[in-house]
C-alpha cells in the first residue's frame, strides 16, 4: 500500500474505523481527564471535598465550583471548537466523580476505615449539564462563561443539599451543640487534620444573617465566570495544531 492509498476499502469500513476511533478517543479522554482533573481537584479543593465537616455554607460553596470549573471549561473548548460536541463538562465531571468514588471507597474506607457517609464527594453534575446545555444552545463561549459559569456556581449548593441537609441536623453532645457533620469530624479521628485547619464559617458576610449560602453561591458563580474564561483559553491552546516548517526546526 502506498502512502497515497486509503487505509480502508469501503464506506462501511471507514465508518467502522471512525467509530472505533471514537471509542478509543473517548475512552482515553475519559481516563486522562479523570487522572488530571482528580489530582487538580484534590490539590485545590482537597479537604473541602473530603470531609462532611468541611462542607459549610460559605467557603465550600465558594471554593468547590471555582476550582472545579477549570477542566470542564478547557475540555469544552477543545470539544466544541474542533468537533461541535457539547459534552466536555459532563465527561469531565463523570470522570472526576468516578475517580473520587473509587478513591473514597478503596482508600478512605477500604484502607483507613473512614465511613463513606463522612467522606463522599461533592455533587457537580447538575452544574455540568447546564454548562454543556448552555454551550449547545448558545453556541458561544462568552455566553457559556457568563450564563453557564454563573449557573454552575448557583446550582452547586442546592444540588448538594439533599445529601448534606441530614448531616446538618443539630445534636447536643456533652453540653455543646454541634451538627452531625461536626460530630463525624470529632468522632472519626484524623491525626493530621486538626480542627483548626478546618476552614469553615470564616468570612465577613455577617450582615446577611443566616442566609449566606445564596450570597456565597453568587460570588462563586461570578468567580467561576472568570475562571471559565481563563481555562477555556487553556483548552483552546491545548487543542490547537500548529505546523512548523522544516526550515524553522
Amino acid at each position, binding site marked *: 500500500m502506498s502512502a497515497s492509498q486509503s487505509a480502508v476499502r469501503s464506506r462501511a469500513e471507514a465508518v467502522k474505523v471512525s467509530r472505533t476511533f471514537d471509542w478509543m478517543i473517548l475512552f482515553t479522554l475519559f481516563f486522562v481527564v479523570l487522572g488530571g482533573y482528580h489530582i487538580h481537584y484534590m490539590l485545590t479543593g482537597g479537604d473541602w471535598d473530603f470531609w462532611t*465537616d468541611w462542607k459549610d455554607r460559605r467557603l465550600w460553596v465558594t471554593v468547590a465550583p471555582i476550582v472545579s470549573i477549570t477542566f470542564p471549561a478547557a475540555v469544552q473548548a477543545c470539544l466544541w471548537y474542533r468537533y461541535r*460536541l457539547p459534552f466536555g463538562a459532563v465527561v469531565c465531571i463523570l470522570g472526576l466523580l468516578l475517580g473520587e468514588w473509587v478513591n473514597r471507597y478503596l482508600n478512605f474506607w477500604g484502607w483507613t476505615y473512614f465511613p463513606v*457517609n463522612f467522606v463522599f464527594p461533592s455533587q457537580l453534575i447538575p452544574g455540568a449539564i447546564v454548562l454543556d446545555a448552555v454551550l449547545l444552545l448558545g453556541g458561544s463561549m462568552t455566553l457559556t462563561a457568563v450564563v453557564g459559569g454563573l449557573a454552575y456556581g448557583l446550582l452547586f449548593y442546592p444540588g448538594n443539599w439533599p445529601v448534606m441537609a441530614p448531616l*446538618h441536623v*443539630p445534636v447536643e453532645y456533652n453540653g455543646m451543640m454541634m451538627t452531625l457533620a461536626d460530630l463525624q469530624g470529632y*468522632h472519626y479521628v484524623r491525626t493530621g487534620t486538626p480542627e483548626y485547619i478546618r476552614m469553615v464559617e470564616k468570612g465577613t458576610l455577617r450582615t446577611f444573617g443566616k442566609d449566606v449560602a445564596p450570597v456565597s453561591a453568587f460570588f462563586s458563580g461570578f468567580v467561576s465566570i472568570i475562571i471559565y474564561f481563563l481555562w477555556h483559553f487553556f483548552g483552546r491552546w491545548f487543542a490547537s495544531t500548529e505546523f512548523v516548517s522544516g526550515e524553522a526546526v
Partner: protein
Amino acid sequence: MKLLLRDKVAKLSFVALLAASSAAMLYTPTAAAHGEKSQAAFMRMRTIHWFDLNWSKEEVKVNDTMTVTGKFYVFAGWPETVDKPDIAFLNVGIPGPVFIRAGSWIGGQLVPRSVSLELGEIYEFKVLLKARRPGDWHVHSMMNVKGGGPIIGPGKWTTITGSMKDFVNPVTTLTGQTIDLETYNLENTYFWHALWYAIGLAWLAYWVRKPMFIPRSIAIESGKANTLITSTDRQVGIAFTVGTIALVAFGMTSTNEKYPITTPLQAGLLRGMKPFEMPAKTVTVKVEDATYRVPGRAMQMTLKITNNGDTSVRLGEFQTASVRFLDSAVLEDTTGYPDDLLAEDGLTVSDNSPLAPGQTRTVQVTASDAAWEVYRLADLIYDPDSRFAGLLFFFDESGKRQMVTVDAPLIPVFI
C-alpha cells in the same frame, strides 16, 4: 559497542525496576506507630511535656470504651522556631479511626474545637475512646499546634478485640431522632449520586451514539459546522436544562420539608482553659552545666538545688520528651507506663540523701538509658538551638511530689 552497552543498561534497568516493584508489593509491613522518634528532639523536649499519663485499659472490646488521662505542661521556654500554642487542638495519635473519640476534655471542659493554651501552665486532660476496629494499636496523646505541627506524647500498645461489623455509634439528635452515625445517610447519599450520575451518563450517551470525532472534525474543516447541531439536539439540550433545574429545585424543597431544622457547622476557638494547680514549689534548681556524652548515651547535669520548704526532699525523676528516668530508691512506677519510655534505674544522683529544709547542695545528676538513642533524643546536639529541657520531680518524706522545670544549654561530649 555503544548500542550493546545501551541495550544492557536498558535490560538491567528493567530487571531492577521489576525487582523493586515486586519487593514493594510483596513486603508491606504494617506501619503501626506514628514516627514519634522522627520528630525533632527539641520539639519533644521544649514544647509540651506530658506527664502522669494513664491508659485505663490494655485490651478493649469493640464498642467498649477506654480513657487516656494525664497532664501536660506547656513549656515556658517554648522555642522561637515553633509557633506558640495560641491555637491548638487536643488530639489522639492513632492509626486512623480505629477508635472513635467519644469525648475529650481539658480542665473539665469539652474540647471538640481548638483551644488557646498559655505558656507556663499545666493542664489536666482526658480523652474517651470507643473501640471500633480490631487490632493492636499504638495509642498516643497528641497536641496539634497551629504553625507547629503535631506534638506527640507517649504511646502505649492497646488491643481491640471483636469484629468491626458489630460497631455501632448511636446518637440522638435535638429533633429527637436516634441514628447510627456509622451508617446514617448512606443510602440517601448513594441514591442522589447514582441518580445524577445516571443523568450525566444519559447526556453523554445522547452524543456518543452518533459519529463523533473524525466526521465532525472533517465537517468543521469544510465549513459545515452549523449543520452539526440539529434542532433535536437543541430540544434535548432544553429538556436536560429544564429537567436539571427542576430536579435540583425539587431536591432542595423536599429536603427542606423533610429536615426543617438544620444548623450551620460549628466552629470557633475555646479560650480560658482552666489550668491545673500543682502544689506550691519549695525547691529551686539552678543548672550549673549540662553535657551529653555521645558514646555513653548519658546526659549529665550539675544542679544546684535549694530546699526552701519545711521538709526534706529527694530527687526521684527526670522526665524529658516523655522518657522517664527514675531513681528506683526514691520512686517506682506503678502506673504501667510504657516500658520503652521508662528507665527504672536511669537516674543517678551523686548525693541523693534527703536535702534538709534550708539546705543547698550541688549534685551531679546523670540520666542514662538506651532511650536517648532509641528515641533519637541524642539528635538534640544537631539542633540549631542546642538546649535541653525537662521536668524534675522531688519527693518529700511523706511521698508528696513537687515539679521543677529545667531549661539550659547542652554541650555534647564526643570523646
